[in-house]
């Protein structure tokens, strides 16, 4: 409270001080007998010199920042794709810095040099076709180079991955990431958001997960049967709005059940095994050095963006859409720690599309291992594939199963 008072007092005193100063200035101006529009030579020269001073501040500031922080605080690129991006980035930076220094210098220097001087009139020059042709065609040529090199790199890093690229899916939801490795067959099982249950968080499609979902939709807590019971219960009286919420919910669940039944009818059980051997991994994403990766992205709720700053790659995860990107890591985490001279360094996967209040905390550690370490980790992980993670007891077979409580 006291500080609020203080703030207000300071503002009031400040305003009074400025008002008094203006008064003073006005009185002085009246004595000088020239209007505000009549810029005096003294002021004019002062501003001309300040133009040059500012130019020095501007260039000095930029050079100081570049020397102190370099132009990528992210360190060297950690993927093959990132290396070509960085090469191109450096080239482009060289070009734009040259343009920046040249044009800003000319601007501020001319402003300083051609300040009004007594007895010297401005030169009447309205246009010069040759000059204009030159400064239209030079940017055009430079841009042609930038465009051609840019598109080459772009095609390189967005082209289809090789067949042997390891498939990993990154699944985004507010506010965490889940990775899914494709397992020994390197084929990711198909998914559908309608199959999401507590024991099938990614909604993988198998004959048994479809059955579980149908069961949960019908008999689970908050399922269709529950809602019908609620409506038919004569002991409780609902308000109109609650009643309409229940009815809307019921209609929605009946629609979803129909869709689930359709899915069951058309499901090909042959594809089950590609889902069963998928490996689900939270918190940390492990990658293998020098292996090409093909990442696919899904989102559960809103748009997220998978941003790998060190690998120089980024792709949105859009609900209802599949997106992809590829890269090949080239330094293990241990190697990068040495390169950056920072023993606690980790690679990271950020969420880089606003997704709600805790957006800033949505990230996943990324660890790049060499092939030996990676294979050892994978052997251990493969024992806990999707099939192993679903225990038979968890699949709701009978009404009122406790695992379906998530389904309200």
């Amino acid at each position, binding site marked *: 409270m006291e500080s609020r008072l203080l703030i207000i007092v300071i503002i009031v005193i400040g305003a009074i001080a400025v008002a008094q100063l203006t008064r003073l200035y006005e009185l002085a101006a009246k004595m000088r007998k020239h209007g505000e529009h009549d810029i005096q030579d003294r002021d004019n020269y002062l501003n001309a010199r300040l133009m040059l001073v500012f130019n020095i501040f501007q260039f000095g*500031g930029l050079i100081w920042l570049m020397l102190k922080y370099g132009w990528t605080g992210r360190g060297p690129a950690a993927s093959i794709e990132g290396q070509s991006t960085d090469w191109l980035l450096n080239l482009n930076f060289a070009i734009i810095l040259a343009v920046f220094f040249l044009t800003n210098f000319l601007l501020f220097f001319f402003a300083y040099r051609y300040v009004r001087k007594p007895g010297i009139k401005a030169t009447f020059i309205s246009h010069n076709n040759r000059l204009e042709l030159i400064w239209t065609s030079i940017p055009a040529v430079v841009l042609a180079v930038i465009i051609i090199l840019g598109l080459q790199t772009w095609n390189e890093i967005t082209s289809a991955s090789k067949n042997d690229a390891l498939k990993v899916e990154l699944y985004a939801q507010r506010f965490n990431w889940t990775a899914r490795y494709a397992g020994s067959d390197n084929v990711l099982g198909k998914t559908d958001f309608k199959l999401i249950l507590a024991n099938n968080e990614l909604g993988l499609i198998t004959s048994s997960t479809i059955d579980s979902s149908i069961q949960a939709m019908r008999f689970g807590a908050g399922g269709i049967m529950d809602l019908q019971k609620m409506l038919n219960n004569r002991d409780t009286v609902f308000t109109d709005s609650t009643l309409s919420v229940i009815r809307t919910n019921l209609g929605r669940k009946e629609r979803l059940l129909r869709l689930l039944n359709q899915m069951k009818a058309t499901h090909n059980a042959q594809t089950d095994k590609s889902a069963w051997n998928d490996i689900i991994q939270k918190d940390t994403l492990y990658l293998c050095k020098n292996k090409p990766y093909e990442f696919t992205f899904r989102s559960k709720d809103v748009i997220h963006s998978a941003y790998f700053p060190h690998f120089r790659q980024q792709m949105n995860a859009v609900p209802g859409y599949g997106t992809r990107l590829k890269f090949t890591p080239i330094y293990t985490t241990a190697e990068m720690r040495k390169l950056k001279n920072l023993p606690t360094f980790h690679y990271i996967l950020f969420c880089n599309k606003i997704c709600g209040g805790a*957006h800033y905390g949505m990230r996943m550690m990324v660890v790049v291992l060499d092939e030996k370490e990676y294979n050892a980790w994978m052997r251990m992980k493969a024992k806990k594939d999707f099939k192993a993670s679903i225990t038979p007891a968890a699949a709701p077979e009978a009404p009122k199963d406790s695992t379906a409580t998530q389904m309200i």
Partner: protein
Amino acid sequence: MASTHDAHGHADHDHHHEESFVSKYIFSQDHKMIGKQFLMTAVFMGFVAMMLSILFRIQLAWPGEKSDFLSFFLGNQWAPEGILNQDMYLGLVTIHGTIMVFFVLTGGLSGTFSNLLIPLQLGARDMASGFLNMLSYWFFFVSSLIMFLSLFVFNGSIFGLDIPGDWGTTGNGPAMAGWTVYPPLSALSQLEGSGFGMTLWLISMAIFIAGSLLGSLNYIVTVLNLRTAGMSMLRMPLTIWAFFVTAILGVLSFPVLLSAALLLIMDRLAGTSFYLSDIMVGSEMLTNHGGSPLLYQHLFWFLGHPEVYIVLLPALGLSSEIIATNARKPIFGYKAMVGSILAIGFLSFIVWGHHMFITGMNPFLGSVFVFTTLLIAIPSAVKVFNYITTLWKGSIVFTPAMLFAIALVSTFITGGVTGIILADSALDIAIHDTYFVVAHFHIVMGMSAVFGLFAGVYHWFPKLYGKMLNTRMGYVHFWITLVGAYGVFFPMHFVGLAGAPRRYYNFTTYKEFDTDAYEMILDLNVIITIFAIIAALGQVIFLYNFFYSIFRGPKAPQNPWRSNTLEWTTPVEHMHGNWPGALPVVHRWPYDYSKPGAAEDFIPQNVPLGPDEEESH
């Protein structure tokens, strides 16, 4: 061409009638008053948006530290114990962006100066339709009010007034989905920041767009039909060319944003699935299927990118006029400048996809947008070179307006060159949505347009209010603002190159994986915030000067800057119909400064050519 209007003007003048307070100051149909109304509203909104930015800059520089300043403005609801709430952080960012882009730099810049200058510089009595012009302001006013009030939504009420019904009442606070309000985040009203505040955001924008369309149509018609005798298209000042093309861009692109907003309102309130497909919120499965969140982005950026030029072109137009006047030299390459404005206007419609390189859009489509986007650099470069050459061998008078106009050229360069990096899809993916982008667009669009706005206010203040601003205060304001602007946005590039994502409440995550980068980001954020506070204090000087001079400034002479354009041939005191007698007749282009053989170093447009004088262009 202007004869019919001329007659009408005379009639008006002869029956001089007293206007009531309401018709003169409130529901005025006079373009000069409407221009002033736009300016006042924009000054207020601009001040609000600037304060919001200071609030979240404090959080970024000193995360988690108690601040009396924050609790003073945000109270216990949004800054418990002086620490900013993480949802409200996004709310502040969202409303700051929205107000600055639409209400200050679109409404404020184009609204004020198109209204003031189109009739005055063309030699017209008023806009083609004074009534539509009045409506355009009042739509703008209502939408500003709604946007401002949306900041105060809390627990289903605004200032203690209950929001009726269950009309999206879930959630507190204003829209919190970023100024682009991408669905599904903005469509799911059960999420924080997508409740009633978001509904207000969308309604406000819909009204804003309606107003903007009315204004733009009026500007176009006026420019095409109401030019005075002798004012051929190629004798129009570059300001008018810029406003004209801006208005065309607005008419062609704002309706697309309106449709985007309407479809989003439908998804929120009527249960449609334009933008929604296969979504779970928590454990609630939505049945929406087949919609596309990317559809919204295409619609949004179809406006969003022309919008950049709706903001920039008027600023460039104003500065062309100011630079030529105060360099006492013709603008270099008038026709090339007109050509550049037209080229930028055209190209701005086919580049929107560069905002979407990482949405999963087909990479080939991305390549096309890379090509078209980088093409814009050519007319932009031409404009910059022409400005620089206009200064060359000039006789420069540093009025505050001239200083801001030169600073505009500088920020246009500085922000423009980083655009080349972002337009290149291969590079964009590495820095998309980082602070590098924030730095880029704040310099090239934010700063340039704000400098254009200030330049315009300093230059045309005598025409707006018949008074002079204090010049020395103008100098102090300018230097603080320029140093502040570069001090804020230069370091921001480096924050972005360190990979720091925008719209992050804090960067504590960095502590877990790269302590060096964390230190760097925090250091830079402190520098940025200190410069931001200095720059904000500088604006107080401007506000003081502005309001003080409106009431107590010295009276303005008729043509204070010794300028050529027609607005300086009108009397200082505003009058309905602008010119007391016949409309001026135009005999030359507006840039006859320091013409050899002339007695003065300027020849107004209504002065006939001398006996052996050749018309220049």
